[in-house]
């Protein structure tokens, strides 16, 4: 289902252009509104649909295998921390789903430099940041025994 944009809803803000991983949402120079310039490189990832403040973007199933008349709509609410979906079948049946998206407030992740600096010995060790503590195990980082490596088929 490549995306398309409803003419009357889009205000040309460009959020979809900014986010599309495939670089295919572009602003039309005449209408100053967004459209999908390369539907056959759309992954239906819904990144642009979720990002559009006007709900102007929708998807219509790929013409080569999806019959008309369906819809899959999404509403992602960062403040509420949820994403909601409404699936409509070609024959009119509906299904609704809602999932959490994040358990902490946005922007609260600590930068690695906010943790105390590692010691010189840590640099040459095999431990990564926050290890061994973050592994939640006793006995430290596991190490393979070099003598166990045996060449060939087993």
């Amino acid at each position: 289902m490549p995306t398309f944009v409803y003419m009357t809803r889009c205000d040309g803000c460009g959020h979809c252009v900014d986010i599309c991983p495939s670089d295919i949402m572009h602003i039309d120079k005449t209408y100053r509104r967004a459209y999908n310039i390369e539907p056959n490189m759309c992954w239906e990832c819904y990144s642009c649909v979720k990002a559009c403040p006007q709900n102007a973007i929708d998807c219509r199933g790929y013409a080569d295998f999806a019959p008309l008349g369906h819809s899959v709509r999404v509403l992602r609410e960062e403040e509420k921390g949820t994403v909601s979906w409404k699936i409509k079948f070609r024959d009119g049946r509906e299904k609704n789903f809602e999932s959490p998206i994040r358990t902490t407030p946005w922007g609260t992740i600590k930068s690695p430099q906010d943790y105390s600096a590692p010691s010189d010995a840590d640099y040459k060790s095999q431990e990564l940041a926050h290890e061994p503590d973050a592994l939640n195990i006793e006995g430290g980082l596991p190490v393979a025994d070099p003598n166990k490596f045996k060449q060939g088929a087993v």
Partner: protein
Amino acid sequence: MGLFGGRKTIRVDSDVLVVGGGMAGCGAAYESRFWGRDKKVVVVEKANIERSGAVAQGLYAINCYMGMQWNENQPEDFVKYASNDLMGLVREDLAYDIGRHVDSTVHKFEEWGLPIMKDPDTGRYLREGKWQIMIHGESYKPIVAEAARKAATEVYNRIMVTHLLMDKRDPKRVAGAAGFNVRTGDYYVFKAKAVIVAAGGASHIFKPRSVGEGMGRTWYAPWSSASAYGLPIQIGAKMTQMENRIVLTRFKDGYGPVGAYFLHLKTYTQNAYGEEYESKWYENTKELVGDYIDRHPVPTCLRNHAFLKEVANGGGPIRMVTKEAFQDPHKEQVGWENFLGMTIGQAVVWASQNIDPKETNPELTTSEPYVMGSHATCSGAWASGPEDYAPSEYKWGYNRMMTVNGLFGAGDASGGTPHKFSSGSFTEGRIAGKAAINYMDDMDDTQLDEAEIQRLEEEIFQPMENYDVGRNEIVAGTVSPSYILPIHALQRLEKLMDEYCGGISANYMTNEPTLNRGLELMDMLKEDSDHIGAEDLHRLQRAWEFKHRRLASESVMQHTLFRKETRWPGYYYRGDHMNLNDDDWHCFTLSQYDAESGKWAMEKAPVYHIVD
């Protein structure tokens, strides 16, 4: 120069340069900052790291988690599982390394706010299978990107990296990267002391099953453009296991994943007549691969093999039996949310075709092949192993350093390490990040070659020149005698790989004469690559994505030609060597490309196993 006469050259100095801000790239940025407090860490990404890479639409599971804290699995178990699934050929030193670190990554994800489902009885992470845990992962990538943005000194979005740059004084050492801004058209030159390539895997190497408008409906993302292979191959980094492409059994047309269905919902497959079919092909598979068929779990490729045999034998379509499981409302919910969380297109296909898995058992299909290094497959760069235990043949420097000095790889870029998935790719980025800091602390600064930078600017923007000149020859339209469009080039590549290197229309079959003919055509496509016409910056990005895909594809062909056996039936078949042959081929295949001569040098490297 026309429209682009005003192009600027932008120079960016860095210590660590991370190419690609997907899962591995974000991990690399995080770890580089942790160890390199005063270092300049730069991430360069062709899209926007907020939603880039294979995890752009989210994931519903983390497929690599040991659970060492509850003694669910140990790194050794992971090594055995991965090696078994890849028919014995895994860099076990690297796999062990992923296994021992990956839990700390996942615990960090949870702390950052990723909703991980819990088992209400035990309070542990809810298991989908032995290795997978279930998440509400719609915002997986935005969460990971937030951590990377906090860690990096600078993130450059919308820069397509086209080349890696070598050190002027040391031609064996990488010194930076070049590319262009897809929005402004500016030329970007990055200098670095160490470069970590984390540019993801490769879709659209082989012709996809979908045609026309649906062409982008591939299993791996259409923006997985093989840059992780094209970039290092160009500068002579050795690659491994490039023949080990993956074919996936997935729900038809939408390519919705089947993992949760098999493992969590306990659905199963049957042929068109309601029969179990895998055991029918047991003897046939045993003839090809011997005892490997008796391993548990049955290797992914061998399950594909049974599927292909059954369909070729007239037993299709193969269906997933969902009707029973979906009567349970909880399972129904998981089944749908699984798609909405990571492959929304599958929900759309079912809605459009009135497929309610509660009432209809949906069809499965086998996909076109993909080249990547983090799923049940391990194509990628040949990299140095962990300092504390890797066998000497695997250890020439710093962990995850490729065979070019200062060049590191992680995630799909790094070879020999399957089953890393999202969490393992992020973890490998972390491993490479720390190693890169250690490397640069031991080394002098790098120096770029100004003449090379000038030459590359011309080469990078040449497709736009080609278009500007060539389009004046014709009235209008897409057909020109002097250039081809990026989409033309891509479709020729896909067709060539499909027909000559074991794609869907060849039933995954090839042989030496077919490959040799394919390589002749590949040479001509290589020549034609200099005659791509790009109308605008977006097409210029497509032109360079194509060039990276083409180089990666050539490497896939060379590797497929070199390995004279069928190691992974169900992924591809060498018709002239239909059997697995452990005597001659229980080894890795390595290739090295020489850009000057255009020649490939192939060699074997030993496999080491961790045995009890």
